[in-house]
């Protein structure tokens, strides 16, 4: 069964200064539900299209299983029609001149499958995706969600070993999205295909994927399980991109109150080599109003406003000109204008060096144990 292996994959477009994708190394294991996540223009769709063969490489190699499908060094290129995979487009790209049934049947016809078998297969897929009733309709007569299911059915009918999805849920409304998300999960389990899914929506990625690959500026940032990516972002970009409301990022800076506080807490931490903590991220839900073991005091902040989001609340806190956001699932008792003592839970702190790379707390702890520092030792570093 095929893994998809991308080795040093690079894509340049003529006339563009920087590479759309550069030096990407990624292995997508069989049966995985891999999500390529990143802001628009990060190269995720280009990567997907290169796997499909709709774009060719400018450097590197892509292999599907044992088969090298595109390689600069070997000078090979296998066109998409021979790669035997499925791709669902963001716009669905249903053929407007064919009925739903014909759309689904098209790939099977190309494979010269006998009529009876084809009919059975088409019916089966339509049944599974609950579009049986629309068999004779044209795409323009369908709603967005129905079109999306036809697009999926069209690909699933030919039993691809790999299914590529390019933001297939972005054109749907909220309810349909949820429904289709469940549907996709179910399909993944039922068909056992490898799914590569492109999205800019972290929520979608978190809920669907088994593995997430975060990309930015054409470069791979981090690959890992959804939980991993959220709780241990490897750099500032990932930390800031994942999470809603976004992480509170405080740069160590004596000019600002919070920055000064952070600087006092973390600035002098001895780390291996020359790297120093340059910024601290605190997840909004990791701010607390009471001290817990290992919590870091953030000082006394003023509650500016409360934004209910239905079942949860976002609190805007201020210290001078600076703002912090706190997310909670318990109804806040404080009123806007109140002053509250704030703490950051230890496990919610993310430290980054000047290059934006993550610094592990364990690393600090280890060094701290070896080389105790004097006065003003932060509370999060128990001796």
């Amino acid at each position, binding site marked *: 069964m095929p893994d998809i292996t991308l080795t040093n994959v*690079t894509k340049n477009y003529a006339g563009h200064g*920087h590479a759309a994708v550069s030096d990407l190394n990624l292995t997508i294991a069989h049966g995985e539900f891999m999500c390529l996540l990143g802001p628009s223009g990060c190269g995720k769709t280009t990567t997907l299209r290169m796997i499909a063969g709709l774009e*060719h490489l400018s*450097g590197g190699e892509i292999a599907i299983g044992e088969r090298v499908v595109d390689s600069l060094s070997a000078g090979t*290129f296998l066109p*998409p029609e021979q*790669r035997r995979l499925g791709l669902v487009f963001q716009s669905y790209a249903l053929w407007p001149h064919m009925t739903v049934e014909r759309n689904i049947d098209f790939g099977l016809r190309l494979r010269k499958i006998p009529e009876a078998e084809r009919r059975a297969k088409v019916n089966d897929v339509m049944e599974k995706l609950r579009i049986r009733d629309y068999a004779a309709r044209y795409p323009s007569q369908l709603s967005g969600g129905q079109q999306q299911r036809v697009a999926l059915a069209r690909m699933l009918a030919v039993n691809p070993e790999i299914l590529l999805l390019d933001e297939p849920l972005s054109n749907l409304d909220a309810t349909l999205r949820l429904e289709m998300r469940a549907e996709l999960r179910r399909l993944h389990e039922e068909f056992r295909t490898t799914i590569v899914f492109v999205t800019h929506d972290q929520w979608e990625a978190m809920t669907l994927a088994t593995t997430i690959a975060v990309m930015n500026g054409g470069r791979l940032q981090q690959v890992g399980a959804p939980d991993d990516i959220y709780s241990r972002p490897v750099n500032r970009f990932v930390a800031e991109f994942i999470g809603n409301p976004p992480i509170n990022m405080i740069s160590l800076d004596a000019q600002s109150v919070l920055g000064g506080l952070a600087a006092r807490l973390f600035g002098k931490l001895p780390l291996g080599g020359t790297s120093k903590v340059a910024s601290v991220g605190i997840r909004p839900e990791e701010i607390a109003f009471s001290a817990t073991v290992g919590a870091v005091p953030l000082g006394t902040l003023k509650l500016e406003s409360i934004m209910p989001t239905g079942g949860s609340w976002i609190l805007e806190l201020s210290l001078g000109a600076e703002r912090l956001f706190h997310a909670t699932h318990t109804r806040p008792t404080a009123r806007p204008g109140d002053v509250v003592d704030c703490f950051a839970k230890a496990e919610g702190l993310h430290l980054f060096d000047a290059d934006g790379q993550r610094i592990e707390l364990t690393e600090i702890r280890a060094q701290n144990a070896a080389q105790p520092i004097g006065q003003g030792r932060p509370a999060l570093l128990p001796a």
Partner: protein
Amino acid sequence: MVMIDGRMTRGDAGSRFQRLRHQLAVARRDPVIAIGLVLALLFALLILAPVISILVNVAIVQIGDAARMRAPEGAFTLYYLTRAFASRMSAILLWQPLLNTASVAAGAIVLSMSIGGMLAWLINRTELPGRGWFATALIIPFMLPTWTLALAWTTIFKNRTVGGQPGWMENLGFATPDWLAYGRLPMIIILSLHYAPFVILILGSALQRLDAQLEDSARILGASRRRVAFQIVLPLMRPALLSSGLLIFADCIGEFAVPYVLGLPVGFDTLSTSLYRAISTRQSGMAAVMAAVIMAIGVLTLYIDTRMMREARRFAIVGGKGAMNRRRPLGRWFIPATGFAVAFFVIGVVVPLLTLFLSTIMRVPGRFTPENFTFDYWIGSNLDTVALRNGILLTPEFWSAGLNTLVIIGAASLASGVLGLLVGYVVIRSPFAALGAFLRQITFMPYLVPGIAFAAATLTLFAVPRGPIPALYGTSIILILALIADQMPFASRSGIAAMAQLGKEPEEAARVAGAGWWRRMTSIVMPIQKRALASAILLPFISGIKGVSLFIILAVPATDVLTTYSLRLVDYNYTQAANAVVLMIALLALAGTILINRLTGKGIAKGLES
């Protein structure tokens, strides 16, 4: 291409070779580049080569001139240029025709823009009664071939200055002066009637896009109606006005049929008739100069137009969402305004078509007595005429001209429609931007070259054998080739628009599903583009039926189409027969346009605009 990857930047020969090999592997799987190259080659031959060859002919000694000029054939010479621009003959050869052309064009622009502007405003901004009907009816003169009107004019106003059957006025006892019967004035009037609907279309759509809130805002700030009209509406309409003016100018420069019918009899030459005269008297050097002059004017006009459109983009009206049409009651202008619209319809449509029709069923022109009417000229046989002794419908030449029209123009339209879609395909899909840009530009080139100059250019190139291509003069192939080239600007534009609208995803989806190129074209691209293809074939077909200038140069009696056949009949003074043929062409063009609009579901106005 710069490889970002550190290992690739070393740029050793190996990696360059690898890249090339990889590119070839990619290209082999995608025929777009191959198709693009074939198209580029084809258009270089069909479009670029004729234009270049005529430009070259301006400055080399032509066949037959060698002895007189004491220079070998093909040698470099400035003789033709000097003769045209700075000799005792220049006034007759170039300056007078140029002046005539310019004055006719200027007159036509002023008149058509005043008439068309007023009508556009009446239709779009006032409560003119029956404005929905007028919006379509007033466009009809633009659908008729220009010389329909010209022939109707001569039928009525012709005088004794030229031979043949006299005009109606003459027979009714009014002697029409030459200035009314021929030359500048009737040409200006006829071209104005023809192009006024064009102004209605362009200005009408600009007026419709104009947000009424822009006017309201000015009114609220206290501006008077007059001030709003002159300081808000007019400046915003300026791009549309200038553009339609320039396009009319470019069309008038290349106009051949009207001066042929109304100018030639009294020696009123325009650039196009001078070019025709030069060709028919085999002065290919002078013909080349005339063609080059016409081309230069065409290029210049369109250059100015593009420059101005670029300027005009600054005027792009933001957010046309509230573009509700505010209409104004006509008040005491009700009767004059309605009368004006009716009059335009009567003069531009009813009178010409009725005149032409009546002229075909009258023995003696302009005598409205019952015994003078007959259908002999349509269906009679063994008439007591010198030649053409059968009614036109019983004349074999008519039917063969009709068949030629169908075959020649049909083949050319079919070819250009398909080629246009292929151009669109390559332009949208080609991984090399340069190839797409080249195709886009070369297919647009014939638009800069008025038909008659282009025909002359084609004749220069293909009249004699060139390499593997035999001499094509006198065959229908040369007509088809010239027509294809002539229709490419429209065909490629609509092909590009259609392919751009389609996007590449439906085809990519088919690719991923496993469909090869041929399968993708036949079951995905072509079926989806069915309508676009139909209109890309039919619209050029209609304009081909109306067209004169290409055929007048390239057709011989054996390859007569309806237009050239009717002009031949005009030359022989078979007025009834000629008018009958013209009437049929006019009706064909009209019916065809309406059919296309039915087919494509566009309003008539929109269909013509593109």
